[in-house]
């Protein structure tokens, strides 16, 4: 910058020259040669020190200045603790919220899965014409495994439940059945014992299980000699062969306690059209997901040609395992991060305007320093130092707040949701989070510094010295401060609108008409162990007795069983064909449920035509089915479906069933799913070992649960019972309600904070502007202006700012809402009532913000106000 640097020797020479010149002069004044020399040295002071200072000048000056600036900034903040505390608190709120949400993003999206080389792992499923993602059948899986050229390994997994005999009765345990290579595909090795051997996949081979680390600790005391022990699950003996690592989890599983080798032993696994598996594959080196997908689709087409009855329209789907695991939560987290970011923006703008106000009031100090030679750069350094002190404080407080927020949010996640999102267990402040926080801090610092330096550049420094300089700077502040507060108001509007729309979606979702009264309905999952109930007739017999006994309990109106509860998922699909209709290869995909005869009465469903089936209709009677209104409307538009017959796509004789009734639609699937065609088969003709018991009560449905559980235990101690619940709880805690609720609450929280911050910001601008106009107000009042007109003047100023903020905010809100359309349910992105309510809230907040300054301005004593200048 300065061209050639001057050397130290040159400087030393100059000092020598100075000493000689000085000595000459002193001699002229009458000193002796020696005295003159000594005197000149004394006058100069320490030559060495001067030389040192010259040498260090460029190096240390900035550090020295910086230290001085920082300590000056700290002194300034301590002198004015209200300002410092406010700024740090506001910044901490913004940073804390952002960092806490980022920690979730980091845990869910950034940290790779806890497996070897996770980006090569994919989830492999089949696909259908109507559903892009369906399970694979065991036989298809075997063909895919054999024929593919893209996976170095492909392994299957499926939920499998076990019953553990315990003194208090059978205890259901979550388990997962996996093919032998499953853990090797993931790249996970047991911490104790060994992995599954391929020979253990063959039916008839010894039954082996591996334990999750938690199970080993909880149920087996963490002892080493657990390997080789045998444990009886669902009446079958299993040998424990290994224990999985502590940090191992598998989000697509059901948080299993036990992992069993998958042997194709159950009836489903012998049928090509019974789909109960998922698969995970490891891509060969150099194979992309697209290539793998093409290969899988080619195999699927081959299978379709080979097995047209079972595999018609069956395609393939291959997606990165990380997408399969976090795909659903990713947009939610990004939405929340966006919300937190907007809150941080508001916080920073708020602090910027506070800083500008402060620099205004320190105008004269700055002007004097400028006049005394402090360069613009030095003054700017001063501001940066002040910003840095604030940011450092805000960052520390924000990190502490983020830590607390994370703990709270994590505690709010139910155990059930946590099992689906095991990656959140690693949530916490780590290096990624710290790095993110530092970047936020740096951005905030840049924003503060730029605002102040711009302010400094555009306000004429010399004005500060002149006494009359205040009116022009006042106007300038009104302009700058006004603009800042408009940004705040507009951003707040975006957040409020987002929160409003999400809130409305949540309300709409929870008030979806499920088609039956959900109150006074208790539910309980029941599992019948195959060992105790090997024959279907035994299952039917047990269920009959169970329903009888439960209906005999006091306060029970009705009881029924169903293979799957209403309002869960439309995930049990079946293919049907209508007898007597021409078949063009396109079958009808329907939801299917197996329900007991009393199911519809227990639910209070409405019969539209025909009859319900009876308890007597079991395997000994002709097959019957009840269909829902959607199925009747779609496929029997002009005719009465009652009496018609349906069957499987090949119309095999055993599959033919007669439609005996049509029931009004009620919701089978999740709250946000559209109700599709559904068939209800009699449980007694298709008994399943796992079912849910539904009990309609006349009193609080929760209180009946212990009595129901006791009744089941009395009937058979080997039957497994899962924790009871109520229909309302099931609906409220369903995943879709959960996601909608958490986004609505969190964005609502951000919006509330934003509203407070922007109201305070607006108050600051108005109050400052009024304090600057005290004299003007005095003159107005002296000339006869009424109080109300002063009020009006203040409100008009606030009103203008609010109006501009709302105008910009409306545009932003509509844009932001369009981006979050997929989070909305039952409400459009441009929902006018929401916008109107939000605008009203902002106007009210503007009135609140300007009330105090208006009141103060109107109570100005004209005489004092005129004196004040």
């Amino acid at each position, binding site marked *: 910058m300065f061209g050639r640097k001057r050397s130290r020797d040159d400087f030393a*020479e100059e000092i020598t020259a100075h000493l000689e010149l000085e000595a000459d002069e002193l001699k002229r004044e009458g000193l002796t040669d020696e005295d003159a020399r000594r005197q000149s040295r004394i006058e*100069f002071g320490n030559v060495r020190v001067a030389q040192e200072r010259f040498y260090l000048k460029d190096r240390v000056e900035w550090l020295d200045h910086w230290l001085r600036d920082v300590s000056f900034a700290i002194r300034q903040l301590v002198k004015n603790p209200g300002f410092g505390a406010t700024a740090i608190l506001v910044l901490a709120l913004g940073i804390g919220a952002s960092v806490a949400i980022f920690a979730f993003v980091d845990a869910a999206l950034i940290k790779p899965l806890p497996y070897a080389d996770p980006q090569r792992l994919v989830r492999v499923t089949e696909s259908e014409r109507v559903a892009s993602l369906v399970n694979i059948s065991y036989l298809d899986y075997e063909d895919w495994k054999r024929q593919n050229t893209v996976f170095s390994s492909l392994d299957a997994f499926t939920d499998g439940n076990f019953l553990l005999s315990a003194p208090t009765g059978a205890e259901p345990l979550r388990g997962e059945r996996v093919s032998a290579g499953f853990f090797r595909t993931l790249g996970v090795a047991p911490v104790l014992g060994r992995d599954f051997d391929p020979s253990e996949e063959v039916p008839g081979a010894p039954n082996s299980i591996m334990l999750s680390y938690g199970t080993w600790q909880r149920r087996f005391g963490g002892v080493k000699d657990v390997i080789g022990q045998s444990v009886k699950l669902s009446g079958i003996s299993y040998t424990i062969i290994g224990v999985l690592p502590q940090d191992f989890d598998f989000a697509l599983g059901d948080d299993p306690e036990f992992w069993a080798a998958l042997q194709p032993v159950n009836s489903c696994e012998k049928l090509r059209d019974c789909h109960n598996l998922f698969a995970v594959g490891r891509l060969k080196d150099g194979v992309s997901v697209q290539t793998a997908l093409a290969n899988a689709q080619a195999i699927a087409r081959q299978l379709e040609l080979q097995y047209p009855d079972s595999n018609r329209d069956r395609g393939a789907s291959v997606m990165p395992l990380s997408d399969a695991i976090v795909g659903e939560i990713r947009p939610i987290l990004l939405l929340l991060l966006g919300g937190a970011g907007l809150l941080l923006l508001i916080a920073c703008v708020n602090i910027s305007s506070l800083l500008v106000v402060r620099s205004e009031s320190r105008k004269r100090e700055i002007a004097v320093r400028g006049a005394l030679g402090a360069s613009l750069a030095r003054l700017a350094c001063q501001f940066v130092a002040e910003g840095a002190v604030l940011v450092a404080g805000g960052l520390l407080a924000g990190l502490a707040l983020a830590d607390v927020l994370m703990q709270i949010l994590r505690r709010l996640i139910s155990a059930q949701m946590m099992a689906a999102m095991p990656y959140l267990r690693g949530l916490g402040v780590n290096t990624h989070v710290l790095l993110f926080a530092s970047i936020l801090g740096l951005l905030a610092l840049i924003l503060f510094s730029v605002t102040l330096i711009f302010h400094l550049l555009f306000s004429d420094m010399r004005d500060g010295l002149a006494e009359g300089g205040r009116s022009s700077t006042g106007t300038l502040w009104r302009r700058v401060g006004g603009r800042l507060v408009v940004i705040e108001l507009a951003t707040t509007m975006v957040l409020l609108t987002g929160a409003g729309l999400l809130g409305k979606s949540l309300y709409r979702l929870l008030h979806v008409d499920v088609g039956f009264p959900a109150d006074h309905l208790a539910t309980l999952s029941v599992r019948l162990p195959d060992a105790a109930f090997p024959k279907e007739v035994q299952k039917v017999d047990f269920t009959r007795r169970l329903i009888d006994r439960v209906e005999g309990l006091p306060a029970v109106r009705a009881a029924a069983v169903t293979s799957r509860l209403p309002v869960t998922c439309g995930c049990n699909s079946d293919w049907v064909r209508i007898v007597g209709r021409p078949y063009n290869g396109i079958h009808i995909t329907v939801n299917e449920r197996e329900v007991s005869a009393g199911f519809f009465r227990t639910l209070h469903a409405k019969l539209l035509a025909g009859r319900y089936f009876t308890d007597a209709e079991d395997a000994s009677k002709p097959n019957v089915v009840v269909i829902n209104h959607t199925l009747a409307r779609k496929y029997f538009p002009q005719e009465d479906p009652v009496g018609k017959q349906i069957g499987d796509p090949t119309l095999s004789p055993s599959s033919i069933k007669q439609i005996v009734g049509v029931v009004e639609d009620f919701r089978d699937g999740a709250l946000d799913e559209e109700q599709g065609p559904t068939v209800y088969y009699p449980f007694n003709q298709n008994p399943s070992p796992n079912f849910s018991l539904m009990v309609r009560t006349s009193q609080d449905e929760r209180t009946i649960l212990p009595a129901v559980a006791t009744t089941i235990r009395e009937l058979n101690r080997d039957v497994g019972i899962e924790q009871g619940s109520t229909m309302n709880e099931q609906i409220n805690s369903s995943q879709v309600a959960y996601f909608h609720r958490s986004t609505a609450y969190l964005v609502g929280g951000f919006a509330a904070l934003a509203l407070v911050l922007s109201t305070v910001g607006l108050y600051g601008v108005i109050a400052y502007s009024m304090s600057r106009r005290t004299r003007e107000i005095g003159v107005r009042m002296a000339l006869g202006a009424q109080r109300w007109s002063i009020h009006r003047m203040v409100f008009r100023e606030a009103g203008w700012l609010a109006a501009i903020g709302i105008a910009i905010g409306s545009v932003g809100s509509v844009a932001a809402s369009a981006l979050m359309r997929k989070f909305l349910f039952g409400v459009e992105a441009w929902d006018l009532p929401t916008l109107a309510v939000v605008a009203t809230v902002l106007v009210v907040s503007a009135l609140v913000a300007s009330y105090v300054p208006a009141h103060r301005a109107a109570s100005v004593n004209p005489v004092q106000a005129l004196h004040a200048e």
Partner: protein
Amino acid sequence: MLQGTLDLLILKILVLGPCHGQGVARLIQRQSEEVLFVDHGSLYLALQRLEDKKWITAKWGVSENNRKARFYSLTAKGREQLVEKSSEWQRLTRAMELILRNVRPRSEEV
């Protein structure tokens, strides 16, 4: 002495013509009627700073009594700065004077 003041004094001395460091120190002392004594170390650093800012330039030369010396002279930029800074200074001193001379009781905001 305040940093900015020394800069201003140096510029003012140099407006009379090129001068070496020792001369500047002497002149400040003499013209201020022996009120202002300049710390020589600070003076040379200030000269260096002004030179870095290109407000003054320096050249080795020979003094009237035949001594080798580094002569400083004002640049156009330095001249501008002198005008600006001295008017600022005058406003400041006027402001100080107004306050110091003011004998009215303090009843208002300053």
